[in-house]
């Protein structure tokens, strides 16, 4: 029952916000925040519960089911956290822009759609919510018009292909099992032929792969992420693409079941092993493409694809530690990627829409809180110890090494170095170094922007030191799939093959920090000077750019650039051109001249008559 109320609040709140905006924008802002906070609290209070209720049977006599279990709760809480943060962030980001009622309406609708997805217990309502999410996301991506419209088109075309694949899969399942309720399909699956399973898997793989942007379905993501309004980029990269991950988990472990999924295929052509390699390719190539980007949001977007690789790798590994790592990384990525997009949004807001990494710099002096958020987010995505990203990556790496996949582990490690390089560039070009003359008067980010940044940063550090809190929840999920339970303490993981204990590391860092800090302050006090004072030794230098940003890793670029063409994107464009030419050819038949059409009809009839006379098929 409570799930229905929750979804009614989510959808109703979205609509009501839109109409409220027609009267007062303040009331609308307040109400939007209120709805998202209420959802956060409601989802939070559902922790640990399970429920299953049929809410509607009028649709072709199919029972539509809402269900709650730990898996859906885990994704729902992630959705509401990111949703709330980005709504609060939007308050000042969207101030004074046009069509804000519409914007808030769509933001809340996307959130509601996603909540619907994770709470739906049958494939039809899953599909309906999936479509609501996809279409409202399309409207938000193309909110800015101009190039955003093209990005939105690209997204929605791929998304529709995915949805169609999913619809075929669902209909086929319905035709074969006579039910669309997930728990009932699960009991049917083991008796199905392996050819049919492959068919279903391929269809859902396309559907979820496109949303999840794993290679080779990633091409919509960089454009969509960079063109969307920043708070929505946070939602898009944080959780919307994670719906694909949720779908994968659902199909692999809920629908097919663990044993069945892991034994599917033979030898090196085992399905989950192939998926692992796909994950690794998804890590490496996009991460290094990200290194070449100059648009801050585009850089983050490419990293989204790269981090999805880690998640897929963890989930596809199919050991309890691997899947715990993968799911924890999905959560972590949601947090730090949302945080990074919000910090870029804050800078973009203050720098009047500039997010080109070559023309910013020195913002640490003007926006310290934003810098702090970007720093913590970057440390998280690199996976520095004491951030949550470290724990999830540690789990994945450990599984890879102990399960004897050294090459997969190597690729994942190198991906981390690519991340380090590009995020140093990100921080350096935007926040460190020289402040350009025209940004001398930039003010701090508004409080409503700082608040979500601070909240998300603290989550990163909190779960970096106490990884046990989320890991316990995830452990419940994986044990419900039939994996063996991990021995999780609040500080980390205890196991015979290597224990992780964050509190040791935390205290070591803390104590050493104090010692080094004391040493630092024991030395003679330093004088803080501006850049010119030291660099030019006090002499006058022309006020120009002294910030080494353009082609930051030039020698590296020259070596790796030839290998980093986005062949897949080129291929899709080629395909588009071919289809375009083909359709253009067909279009020529429609001349608009009645005489021609009569000719076609006569030609058609004669050929029918000819066929009948010659072969007598009818």
């Amino acid at each position, binding site marked *: 029952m409570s799930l229905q109320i929750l979804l009614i609040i989510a959808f109703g709140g979205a609509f009501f916000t839109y109409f409220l905006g027609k009267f007062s924008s303040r009331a609308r802002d307040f109400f939007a925040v209120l709805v998202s906070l209420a959802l956060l609290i409601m989802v939070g209070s559902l922790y640990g519960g399970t429920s299953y209720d049929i809410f509607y049977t009028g649709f072709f006599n199919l029972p539509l089911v809402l269900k709650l279990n730990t898996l859906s709760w885990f994704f729902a809480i992630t959705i509401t956290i990111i949703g709330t943060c980005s709504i609060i962030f939007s308050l000042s980001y969207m101030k004074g822009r046009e069509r804000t009622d519409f914007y808030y309406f769509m933001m809340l609708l996307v959130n509601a759609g996603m909540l619907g997805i994770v709470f739906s217990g049958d494939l039809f309502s899953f599909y309906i919510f999936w479509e609501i999410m996809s279409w409202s996301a399309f409207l938000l991506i193309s909110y800015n018009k101009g190039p955003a419209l093209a990005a939105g088109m690209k997204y929605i075309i791929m998304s529709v292909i995915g949805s169609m694949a999913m619809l075929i899969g669902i209909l086929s399942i319905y035709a074969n099992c006579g039910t669309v309720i997930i728990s009932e399909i699960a009991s049917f699956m083991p008796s199905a032929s392996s050819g049919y399973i492959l068919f279903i898997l391929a269809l859902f793989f396309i559907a979820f792969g496109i949303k999840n942007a794993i290679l080779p379905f990633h091409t919509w993501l960089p454009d969509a992420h960079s063109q969307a309004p920043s708070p929505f980029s946070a939602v898009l990269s944080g959780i919307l693409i994670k719906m694909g991950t949720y779908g994968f988990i659902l199909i692999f472990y809920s629908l097919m079941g663990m044993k069945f999924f892991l034994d599917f295929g033979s030898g090196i052509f085992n399905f989950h092993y192939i998926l692992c390699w796909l994950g690794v390719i998804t890590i490496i190539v996009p991460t290094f493409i990200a290194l070449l980007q100059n648009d801050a949001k585009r850089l983050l977007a490419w990293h989204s694809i790269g981090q999805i690789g880690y998640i897929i790798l963890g989930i596809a590994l199919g050991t309890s530690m691997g899947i715990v790592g993968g799911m924890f990384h999905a959560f972590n990525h949601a947090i730090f990627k949302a945080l990074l997009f919000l910090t870029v949004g804050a800078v973009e807001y203050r720098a009047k829409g500039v997010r080109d990494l070559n023309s910013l710099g020195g913002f*640490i002096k003007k926006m310290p809180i934003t810098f702090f958020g970007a720093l913590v987010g970057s440390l998280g995505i690199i996976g*520095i110890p004491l951030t949550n990203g470290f724990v999830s990556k*540690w789990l994945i790496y450990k599984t890879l090494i102990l399960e004897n996949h050294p090459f997969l582990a190597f690729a994942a490690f190198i991906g981390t170095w690519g991340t380090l390089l590009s995020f*140093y560039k990100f921080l350096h070009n935007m926040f460190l170094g020289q402040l350009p003359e025209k940004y001398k008067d930039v003010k701090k980010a508004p409080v409503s922007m700082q608040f979500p940044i601070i909240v998300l940063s603290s989550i990163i550090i909190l779960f970096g030191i106490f990884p046990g809190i989320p890991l316990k929840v995830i452990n419940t999920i994986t044990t419900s799939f039939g994996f063996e339970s991990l021995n999780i303490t609040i500080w980390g993981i205890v196991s015979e093959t290597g224990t*992780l*204990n964050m509190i040791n590391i935390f205290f070591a860092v803390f104590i050493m920090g104090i010692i080094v800090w004391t040493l630092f302050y024991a*030395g003679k006090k330093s004088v803080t000077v501006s*850049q010119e004072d030291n660099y030019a030794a006090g002499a006058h230098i022309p006020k120009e750019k*002294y910030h080494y940003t353009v082609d930051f890793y030039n*020698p590296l670029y020259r070596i790796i650039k030839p290998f980093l063409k986005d062949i897949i994107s080129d291929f899709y464009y080629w395909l588009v051109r071919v289809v375009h030419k083909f359709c253009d050819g067909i279009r020529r038949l429609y001349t608009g001249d009645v005489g021609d059409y009569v000719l076609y009809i006569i030609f058609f009839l004669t050929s029918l008559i000819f066929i009948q006379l010659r072969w007598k098929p009818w």
Partner: protein
Amino acid sequence: MVVKIIQIILYPLMALMIGIFFLGLARKIMARIQWRYGPPLIQPIIDMIKLFNQNSVSHGFMFNFGIIFSLVGSVIVVLFLPFGGICPLSSSGGLLVILYIMLFAPLGVALSGGEGANPNISIGISRKLILALGYEVPFLLAILAVMTHYETISIVEVVKIQQNAGWAIFSLPLFLSGIAYLMILPAILGLRPFDMASAPQEISSGPMAEYSGKFLALMSIEHAFGLFIGIALFVNLFLGGASNALIFFFKMLAVFTALICVNAVYPRFRIEQALKYLWKWPTLLAFTGLVIVSVIGR
């Protein structure tokens, strides 16, 4: 417990002393190779004390914090590395944690230098990170070969197994990996021919360009730790570690002396040359090593 606390306090100090000794020794050996007399062995300590008492210039919060961050990282890595029988933090995540905490040091210096807003610093950091990406490829391949072969992620275990089975570098499946590691060790330590990150003649010592006074002192402490970590990791992983501290020290000394001899005679690579070198022979060797380990090793 008490023993452990004493170890935690004394072990980094000892590591620092060894690192500083190496710094002094390096100058002495270099001088002798170049037919000079060279400064006394304790010259680095004299310099540090002097630098601590000098005036210094800062550029803001990150400039101060970055260097503390990187130094903390180095000390923590030391606590994770077994030194003979000493290893205070052995049970907190093993080699994977070491690999990740080793990121603290370059990242801290990079963040600190970044706020210095000096193009020379940025160029130096850019070179340093590219170089790191360069040597990380063979480095990770070699380390993964060790972890896969011994089926553990704990460095203490690796040392323990080698005590019985002999040095890894002389065992058949890990031989190539060991050679590859040795070939990239100068790059890890930033010694010539791989000192392009801190090239004093081109970019005024790169990341250190804006440092003065106590910042420079902390940087030389950081450098000392860096030498210790790089060599100690190699000794632990491939030269069998040691059962007591003295033998371990001599192993480190032997490796370091060899590296300094290379350092004394080579000119500096350009960064592209370094990348091409690192991604060619050491990577090929390390890759073959890992293939051998994953095929025959089990």
